């Protein structure tokens, strides 16, 4: 199982370990974990809405693209939805390859593409009970994804 879209938290370490277990052909594993920041104590929870079905499909497409671009020996992506508290994990990407260059590049590519293509939306609930507006997409995220386009 390469991809999960789930409400539950995950064990990033166990997931990364599973990629290498019983194998001797992997030289490099890169794990990225995205966490919910507390915004200097202002944030109570983050609500993540998603488009069921499309979210899994888009992440699968991004994963397939990573496999096509780099010689990966393994890959794992988990993205949560629902209510997430400060300090909690939101997303993880782990990539395994023979050499570190491919593992690093693929992990960064996956995160950039997830940000740009996977249908998830975040809304912050403040510690004082008020609901903040929806988190706005950053132009830098579009730029991060664009740098992987092939000429």
């Amino acid at each position, binding site marked *: 199982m390469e991809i999960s879209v789930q409400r539950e938290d995950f064990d990033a370490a166990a997931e990364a370990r599973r990629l290498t277990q019983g194998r001797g052909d992997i030289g490099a594993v890169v794990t990225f974990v995205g966490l919910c920041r507390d915004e200097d104590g202002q944030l109570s929870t983050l609500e993540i809405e998603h488009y069921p079905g499309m979210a899994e499909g888009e992440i699968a497409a991004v994963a397939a693209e990573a496999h096509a671009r780099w010689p990966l020996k393994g890959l794992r992506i988990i993205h949560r939805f629902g209510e997430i508290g400060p300090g909690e994990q939101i997303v993880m990407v782990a990539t395994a390859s023979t050499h570190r260059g491919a593992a690093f590049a693929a992990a960064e590519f996956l995160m950039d593409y997830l940000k740009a293509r996977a249908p998830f939306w975040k809304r912050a609930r403040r510690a004082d009970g008020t609901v903040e507006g*929806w988190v706005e997409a950053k132009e830098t995220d579009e730029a991060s994804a664009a740098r992987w386009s092939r000429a």
Partner: protein
Amino acid sequence: MKARYFAWVRERVGKAEEEIDPPAEIVTVADLIAWLGRRDEGYAHAFENPKIIRAALDRAHVKPEAAIAGAREIAFFPPMTGG
């Protein structure tokens, strides 16, 4: 076809999904956005700035110029903020 709305598009429209039956002259995604925007105040608010509305036809991203003919599901949402 089924229309689905997410995040603040959903909140402004006031529902998560509905069946819609646009007239024959509504050919593209952009046409549909304009048509929906004329429905009532909530829709007008949701679609007031078509440039920042993203759309998916049968769960694949599409551009405003895409033809909607044959699609079973169309979704509208703000730029994604996952990851």
